[in-house]
């Protein structure tokens, strides 16, 4: 999903919900289902519409609530949004029994130590099948909040500040566009937590299917995309590409989409605040470590970006909200070099056919 759609906006949160709100109307849902080859059903349309309306209400409530309860409201908003979006994408309502995960927060000292434990074929695995295809959770294999927070691209800096020894799972990429071939590069500073850069690269799934052999310079790891290769990686809220380090679970490598990773994190915080007030209350009232800052930022990122990511899945494009002046086409910059690169194969000269 690399097609980017730029939408001008002065309020991205409001506008993303405006876009999602079109699916709160059965007529639009029926049209979407028909366009995607599904039989329309009034019952399904009403189910989806209800999910989108409730989800927005939960997210608005979370935004306006104190952190004592906002994580749970946000999780409810997320689970409802995924239920509605899944029904649209699959053309049928999923049969979901249970969250598909439990929280282990006994005797934890940090949020990072809380564990989300996938269980059976509940909501987690069913949503994963749609929003992170190919990922199959190992039943009972725990995911720590440290892993989950470390996998959110927009949290990398805060994550590394908060957990001095922890290894991040999202590596920022700088895309360099040049006349002579665009390239992507990783700053070696961003791999400082790894013993050697190869440790990080070896755990990026499909790296060598998508890129030529990485080239190391003193400052960077240079990556060139293979021609016509599938894109890997994910994009942050501010449209920065990140490569994802896979998580090793029972000898399997798993690279979750941001939607599912955030979903697990929201579940963890929601249930921690709801069912472990003996930990949550002192944490939000008098945290001395700074972990609260990270948690607050995670909640803020989910609040802003999670609905955006779900919208991307529904519309099959990467929607980027920007604030730019419209109505100006600037041709004052020389485009000669661009001309030579546009049209991937530029055919010049006299063709054989013309001569004959």
């Amino acid at each position, binding site marked *: 999903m690399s097609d980017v759609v730029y939408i001008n906006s002065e309020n991205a949160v409001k506008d993303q919900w405006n876009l999602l709100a079109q699916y709160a109307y059965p007529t639009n849902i029926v049209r979407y289902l028909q366009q995607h080859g599904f039989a329309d059903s009034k019952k399904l349309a009403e189910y989806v519409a209800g999910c989108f309306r409730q989800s927005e209400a939960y997210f608005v409530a979370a935004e306006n609530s104190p952190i004592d309860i906002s994580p749970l409201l946000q999780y409810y908003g997320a689970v409802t949004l995924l239920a509605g979006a899944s029904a649209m994408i699959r053309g049928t309502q999923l049969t979901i029994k249970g969250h598909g995960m439990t929280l282990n927060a006994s005797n934890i000292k940090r949020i990072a130590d809380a564990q989300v434990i996938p269980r059976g074929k509940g909501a987690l695995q069913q949503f994963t099948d749609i929003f992170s295809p190919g990922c199959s959770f190992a039943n009972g294999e725990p995911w720590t909040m440290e892993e989950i927070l470390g996998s959110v691209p927009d949290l990398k800096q805060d994550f590394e500040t908060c957990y001095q020894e922890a290894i991040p799972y999202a590596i920022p990429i700088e895309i*360099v566009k*040049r006349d*002579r*071939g*665009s*390239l992507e*590069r990783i700053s070696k500073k961003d791999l400082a937590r790894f013993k050697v850069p190869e440790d990080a690269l070896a755990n990026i799934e499909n790296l060598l299917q998508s890129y*030529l*052999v990485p*080239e190391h*310079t*003193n*400052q*960077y790891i*240079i990556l*060139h995309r*293979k*021609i*016509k*290769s599938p894109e890997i990686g994910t994009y942050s809220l501010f449209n920065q590409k990140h490569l994802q380090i896979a998580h090793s679970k029972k000898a399997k490598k798993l690279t979750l989409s941001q939607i599912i990773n955030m979903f697990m994190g929201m579940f963890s915080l929601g249930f921690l605040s709801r069912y472990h007030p003996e930990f949550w209350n002192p944490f939000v009232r008098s945290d001395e470590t700074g972990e609260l800052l990270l948690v607050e930022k995670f909640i803020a990122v989910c609040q802003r970006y999670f609905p955006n990511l779900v919208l991307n899945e529904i519309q099959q494009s990467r929607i980027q909200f920007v604030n730019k002046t419209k109505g100006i086409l600037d041709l004052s910059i020389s485009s000669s070099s661009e001309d*030579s*690169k546009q049209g*991937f*194969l*530029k*055919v*010049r*000269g*006299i*063709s*054989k056919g013309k*001569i004959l």
Partner: protein
Amino acid sequence: MSIRSDAYDICKLIWDSPSREYLKSLLLKLQASEAGYLARGQRAQILSFLIIDQRKPELEKKLHPLHIVPLKDEERILLSNAHRQIVQLNKECIASLSPKLPQCIKSIDPYVKFGYEQLPVGVEYDILTEKTIEKMAASFSKHPAIEVVLHSMLPDTTKMTEGKYAESVLTISETLFKAGVFDAPSDFQRILFSQAKDSIQRIIARHITALTCIQASLSVLDQLVYQAILSNKLPLLDKNNIIEIGQMSKNLVGNGLSLLYQPGEQLVMSNICDIVLVKSEALGLPLGQLWKVEAVHHEYSQEFGSSEELTLREVDENLNPFGHLLEHI
């Protein structure tokens, strides 16, 4: 079967030649030396090292403080014999032209432009056996350009001296090279569009162009032999090292292409005149075509890593880089 596939066959025979390993290790050693750097500029394969060895005093004086290690007698003999066999291969390939148009032979010798003294003779090291040369020559004798040369002989052309032939072929070669791989020289366009096929001017142009094509094909053959001595694989450009396909041109001389690749294990570096294999579906051409390197632009920086931009000219099944021109002239 084609001249190209027969050339592949002789490359495979070279791999099994008993002299190959010794020659290969010597060439690799020389390539890594100061002489190797200078030899790349000569673009005359094995002969490059012999020329540099012969011109050592002059080059050292000119390029002070460069020091060129002289070849040992045995090395000189080894290189001389190998080169002599390549020259012999070329002679046999165009043997059918010799009796009918002897004055054109020198013009199509790829090494004629390199002045060198008589090479030493010594113990024979066979890289190419007589049988191998015979087989390749039989195949090359069917080169369509040879037939064009023989069918475009006019009273005017038969009167041409050896020097005039050499000068004419050299002029056309240089004109084609200067025009680059993406364009046909305007002179050719003018002849093609303004002269009837049976006009004297067009026939003479066809005659000299065909000789140029033969010379270019022999150069490619010689380069393939040289590369076969050095490696069991042709340099390969494919999805594992191509960064970007640039410009592509199908013009009345041939096919031209520029591409950017990342040097690495598969292809460490390229030199002008190298023959490379390109396998990329993005080109929309049959996979596995041979291309001749006409220009190389290398770039390395800490910020952007290393890349090489190659300008390539396609080599057809007759090893001819100017196939379209031969067809249309």
